[in-house]
């Protein structure tokens, strides 16, 4: 049995915490017991729901807001309620759409990949582009996300329909951002009127001001989100996985281990692929 770790590491100042105003926020570590004074290390870690490789449900703001992010969801689970046998050693299929810098996956590309995939009813889905690697995340900084590939909304709708028909529970992907950066970062780090120089994320003054401007929306683009096209038909979606090319076959067993936070709607998780 081969076991592959697909989890993005957590480190202070990681770019996933820096690029957006409030979908995510900075990873900060405070070492309050240290080798020099205490002979032991203890660290306070400030994370966010979307730190590293997050698993995101239909109601990501639970337990503070149980309202689904889209109407008529097929499933309504918080992360702590998902049955263990949906998380551990589930059959999964690889949907391979190789995509490099700046590429937005189209419906045609997705359908071509679905045509050749060994996709069986009940499978979880790994949308693998080859973009997500630990080394690239360590070295590219914010460009890892700003220049990364993504999924167009219409391709997201196509994938959503297929996952619904196959009764798939989870979509996991090595895309840094599922939405195109031009959508997610519109008029923040890109767009007609990007904020220059780029401010710090929440709780910076600029991020707080942006919540006023957006009035409840999560990004400033008029284009709808590809994430929101898929989430109503899935139990949860995970993005920002890494090193998925370790998986040699086109099928594997998936282990998803969100940190067990009571009633959380989204949080950093570990992802492992098991191959015989």
């Amino acid at each position, binding site marked *: 049995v081969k*076991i592959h770790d697909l989890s993005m590491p957590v480190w202070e100042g990681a770019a996933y915490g820096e690029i957006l105003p409030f979908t995510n926020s900075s990873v900060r570590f405070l070492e309050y017991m240290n080798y020099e004074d205490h002979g032991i290390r*203890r660290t306070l870690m*400030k*994370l966010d*729901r979307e730190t590293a490789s997050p698993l995101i449900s239909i109601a990501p703001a639970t337990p503070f807001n149980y309202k689904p992010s889209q109407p008529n969801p097929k499933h309504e689970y918080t992360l702590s309620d998902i049955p263990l046998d949906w998380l551990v050693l589930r059959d999964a299929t690889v949907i391979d759409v190789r995509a490099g810098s700046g590429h937005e996956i189209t419906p045609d590309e997705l359908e071509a990949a679905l045509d050749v995939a060994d996709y069986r009813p009940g499978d979880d889905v790994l949308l693998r582009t080859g973009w997500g690697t630990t080394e690239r995340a360590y070295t590219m900084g914010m460009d890892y996300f700003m220049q990364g590939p993504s999924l167009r909304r219409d391709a997201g709708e196509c994938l959503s329909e297929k996952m619904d028909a196959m009764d798939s529970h989870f979509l996991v992907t090595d895309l840094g951002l599922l939405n195109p950066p031009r959508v997610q970062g519109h008029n923040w780090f890109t767009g007609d009127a990007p904020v220059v120089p780029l401010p710090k994320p929440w709780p910076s003054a600029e991020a707080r001001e942006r919540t006023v401007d957006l009035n409840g929306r999560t990004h400033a683009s008029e284009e709808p989100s590809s994430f929101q096209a898929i989430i109503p038909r899935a139990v949860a979606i995970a993005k920002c996985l890494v090193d998925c090319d370790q998986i040699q076959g086109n099928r594997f067993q998936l282990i998803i281990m969100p*940190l067990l936070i*009571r009633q959380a709607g989204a949080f950093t998780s570990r992802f492992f692929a098991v191959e015989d």
Partner: protein
Amino acid sequence: VTQLFELTLPLDREWMPDELFPTATHFLFAPRGHPEKGTTVGTDSGTALLLPSQFREFRKQRRVHDLDASELVLRPTAVIDLPRDPGQAIEANDVDDAISRAEIRRGDAWLVRTGWGSVEHERGTDRYMLDSPFLTPAAARRLGEAMRAVSTDLLLVDTALISRPDKHLIPEWTVMNPRPLCHPSEAARAYLQGYRTREVLADWEADFELASAGIMTVRRLVNCDAIPGRRTRLIIAPLRVVRGVGAPCRVVACHDGDRA
């Protein structure tokens, strides 16, 4: 058919039973719009993995991000039964007896099951921490020796603590009335100014003994009584913290009879 058992103490924003000492970090789960939006956790919040490198003497040893998936996922595990009463110590001879009854194979993780993690603890009290069974330093030394002898380096326990910090933290901190909050309260930070290496090593001697033997530990497992038999396989999923000496983790048992 694989049976799955959740062995993780949930992180609960309303109350965490392990936030007794100033050495712990308050678990905060804050909503959007809050200045601290997101989550604050400590190295050893809830069910947590701690590495030998938590101690200065072993700081050159590996960190959390160095752990290979094969060490953490579907890890064959021997369940070592050591039933304890509240507050009862595990002594060195108890370790020998329990090991002799266990079904241990080379390279196994060891799960010491006292029953403490299966007790329903009243919310809002200190009993989970203060009445927890614990390892004496001699027992920890014996465990470390025995584990090294079979080439294993991972110990899991269903107790709240490995050591009982009764030299300083219990007599100095828990007697304060009203008791201050854990880190990052002002009182906790002030206490830690005087809680130096000598005091740490006096309080956490059993932890140090295990670290000296190169043993990683996972503490605060729950529900271990549900695991049938004396062998299982575990999934241990800590936050993948770069250069971390420990991290909160999720632990699940996958029980499929003889395959473990």
